């Protein structure tokens, strides 16, 4: 560490001496009030479809609005600038608070009757764009409720993009300072708000455009307007909720699947790339990005491999069907969407586990996808081969490069650390789920699918989580949140050093 860095550290700590808990409270009050507005579209849907299910949403609107107001009022004058530490609290609380608030109408409704555990599970699964569900018989549920679930995922999707593009890089979680815009000077670390606001606006617009395009595509492919809109919500957000028990298999349409593949794929790309392509009207920037190329390469490789195994294992008739199923599932799993057109837990040989492991790879950083993200795997591979080279040339300086540029050692360390902590958390959560009495296949895949925000697992959780005990569901809720927050913000909040002084 240089002397300058030391001096700057002193200054930063001086600034950070007390956390702006008041300002955080103000933000969450506002957030809840804004979020309460999202109860109104389902009311409209309910009236439109005349499903007599509008009152839970109206009640939830009032409850969430009142709670938000109560939080906001005492703190409404706390307008101090947010700092690094506040960022961690906001990031961690964001999904927890919205998960709880989002569960309110689900608890209130009597179609279906849901326990608090199930309601929270469903809401968290929505906001984290996981797509694991505890509901069956979706086709018979009121349209307003179905719409509401889809809408939760849509908001979760934009939330994660803003988090990933604007916030995590500033916080430096798991090497994501990699994506931090190279703005020199001390401004970079201290003030969060202006950059976030500007970025968030652009991302919203982009996200909206993608969603509209996706809905249009689904409609053109033959979906009803209701299905088209609701599925566009969960496609672009790589969420995976559907309005049908059979998921996308319900439509049994090649056109629908192609639209889904295209927009799941788009949702799994770094939104910064979309942003650049949008602003400069240039497509070839995508191809220049090392992570994007790896992302495409993995999807193609897994699709081909799955096709061969499916065809050889005679799971489906003919190459064409095998390819169709394989391509859809590979994209759905890697982007951690979790739509299914076939129950891949029954596929032959290593495929079910291979696909679950693919969700650990996940989509690109700065996308709506879950998992560890392609860029981290890319770095792990390069860092790993550097360690091998270092054994052969113990004294050589071997920089790790990404896109031709050397990667800073802090990032290298952070990526290793992220990987180790991710794997350890996975093992611990899996053992917790085993303790509740689940079998090994179920426990393994349930935690994988929740942490990677995928949705379907293997064994008992291959289509829904109804058979899991309440304790097990709470473990899964934790896994979904940990995965979505990239683990470290949670760990930071648990570390004593964070709360000191």
């Amino acid at each position, binding site marked *: 560490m240089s002397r300058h860095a030391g001096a700057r550290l002193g200054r*930063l700590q001086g600034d950070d001496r007390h956390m702006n808990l008041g300002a955080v409270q103000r933000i969450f009050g506002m957030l809840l009030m804004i979020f309460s507005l999202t109860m109104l579209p389902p009311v409209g849907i309910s009236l439109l479809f005349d499903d007599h299910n509008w009152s839970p949403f109206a009640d939830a609107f009032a409850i969430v609005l009142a709670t938000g107001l109560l939080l906001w009022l005492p703190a409404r004058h706390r307008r101090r600038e947010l700092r690094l530490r506040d960022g961690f609290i906001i990031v961690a609380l964001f999904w927890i608070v919205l998960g709880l608030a989002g569960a309110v109408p689900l608890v209130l409704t009597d179609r279906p009757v849901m326990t608090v555990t199930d309601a929270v599970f469903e809401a968290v699964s929505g906001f984290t764009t996981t797509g694991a569900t505890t509901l069956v018989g979706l086709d018979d549920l009121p349209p307003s409720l179905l719409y509401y679930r889809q809408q939760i995922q849509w908001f979760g999707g934009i939330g994660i993009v803003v988090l990933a593009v604007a916030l995590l890089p500033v916080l430096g979680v798991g090497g994501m300072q990699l994506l931090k815009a190279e703005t020199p000077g001390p401004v970079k670390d201290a003030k969060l708000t202006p950059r976030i606001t500007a970025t968030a606006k652009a991302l919203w617009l982009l996200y909206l455009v993608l969603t509209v395009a996706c809905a249009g595509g689904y409609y053109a492919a033959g979906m009803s307007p209701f299905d088209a809109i609701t599925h566009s919500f969960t496609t672009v957000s790589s969420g995976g909720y559907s309005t049908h028990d059979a998921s996308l298999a319900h439509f049994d349409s090649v056109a629908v699947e192609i639209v889904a593949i295209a927009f799941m794929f788009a949702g799994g790309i770094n939104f910064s790339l979309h942003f650049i392509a949008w602003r400069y009207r240039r497509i070839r920037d995508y191809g220049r990005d090392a992570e994007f190329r790896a992302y495409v390469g993995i999807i193609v490789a897994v699709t081909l491999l799955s096709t061969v195994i499916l065809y050889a294992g005679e799971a489906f008739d003919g190459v064409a069907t095998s390819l169709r199923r394989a391509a859809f599932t590979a994209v759905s799993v890697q982007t951690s969407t979790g739509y299914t057109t076939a129950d891949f837990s029954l596929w032959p040989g290593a495929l079910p586990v*291979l696909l679950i492991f693919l969700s650990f790879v996940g989509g690109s950083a700065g996308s709506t996808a879950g998992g560890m993200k392609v860029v981290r795997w890319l770095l792990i591979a390069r860092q790993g081969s550097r360690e*091998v080279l*270092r054994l052969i040339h113990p004294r050589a300086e071997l920089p790790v490069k990404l896109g031709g540029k050397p990667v800073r050692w802090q990032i290298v360390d952070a990526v*290793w650390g992220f990987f180790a*902590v991710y794997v350890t958390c996975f093992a611990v959560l899996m*053992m917790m789920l085993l303790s509740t009495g689940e079998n090994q*296949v179920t426990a*393994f895949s349930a935690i994988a699918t929740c942490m990677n925000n995928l949705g379907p697992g293997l064994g008992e959780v291959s289509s829904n989580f109804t058979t899991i005990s309440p304790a097990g569901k709470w473990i899964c809720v934790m896994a979904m949140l940990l995965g979505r927050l990239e683990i470290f913000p949670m760990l930071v909040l648990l570390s004593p050093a964070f709360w000191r002084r």
Partner: protein
Amino acid sequence: MHFGAVQRILGMLLSLFSLSMLPSAGVSLWYRDGEVHVFVLAFVLLVVVGLLVWWPVRKDRRELRLRDGFLVVALFWVVLSLAGAVPLFLSTQPVVSVTDAVFESVSGLTTTGATVLTGLDSLPKSILYYRQQLQWLGGIGIVVLAVALLPMLGVGGMQLYRAETPGPSKESHKITPRIAQTAKALWVIYVALTVACALAYWLAGMTPFDAIAHSFSTVSTAGFSTHDASLAHFDNRLIEGIAVVFMFIGSVNFALHFLAWRRLRLANYLLDEEFRSFIWALALLVVATWLYLWASGYYASLDEAFFKGLFQVVSTHTTSGFTTADFSLWPGVLPVLLLFTSFIGGCANSTSGGMKVIRWLLIGKQGAREVRRLIHPSAEFPVRIGGRPVQWRVVDAVWGFFSVYVVVYVVMMMLLLAAGHDQVTAFSAIAATLNNLGPGLGAVSASFAALETSSKWVCIVAMLLGRLEIFTLLVLVTPGFWRR
């Protein structure tokens, strides 16, 4: 690279190793089990092959260098594993295929303890003795490798244990003198421990044959037994207690034993941070397992739950793999928990497998540092072991070791799945072999006989990868290693 010198060493090694056939021949004569010719034949074969390898290059006495070290280490286990399979293959009781013979031999020399043989109790004594002896030799092999060689090669952060000899002698990559000297001291300690263990077993009621045979596979934390039922055969808590003690000793850093031996002081053990963590981990796991077994009603009495729990936790944590109960049938999380303890393994520089306690300790500290770094982005937090800061290269190497270990594990598991095995079997078979543990869950809970040929080879590779700490083999498949 000095291929000549490497070849010379391997030739000598094979000739030396051929001598290990003679005790088995002696056992065969003593018990008149009719297997003498097998071992004599194997002896002649190996001596001849060894001499043939050695003869053309006998004058090539060049100093070995860093790169040769990787080659020697990797070839050491591969060549000896093949050589060790010869008598098993030649024997007619039992009749085994080449695959099974190699599997058994690799499992022995890597101190894994996974077996493809059943009906051990009725096998010839000499074959039983030979298996145990393989593990014993594997045990001392790995200790020498870990104490003398890996630190110098810098595999997976093990340069942590490199003696701090300053000056140009380090630069020149000379490895021979130190190894010879260290190896001698380690031999003495190892033999002393084995003798103590054998005596204790004998006094506790084992036959002399069983006592010696089991002492071989206890001190080496290997896990082969002369009975199908493993240590449950004896049904004797004293014997189990002795096994627990010596499995534990075998998985403590032998450098610590060396210090304690030379200065006759026990305090050194407690000064070692890895040792303390190891004890804590064992204690916590024993208590957790004990209470879980008791609370779930699997064992009716507290003391039975305690003894079964204690034995099985120590056996899996030290990656021995002896069993007094089939833990794959234990309730809830226990089977997987025990299997996961083998990923931790014992201390570095011991006979145990797994990733080693020191690496987990470093991963814990390094992980905590990453968290602190998020809170204070520009502060510097050195990672410390025993109060001293750890070099950043070690930190990098440990992270790298961990991720490569996990990735290799996943890839090998998928190979087994692709061969058609169920997930529990595939998951546990690779864990049990990569960590050099032995027994797994599902179809491999007692023996690996149920696996088909290709899967056995996958497991063989896993055992070797685990024993050689992966990187030693990875280096050999790097183009950069062979260039120039």
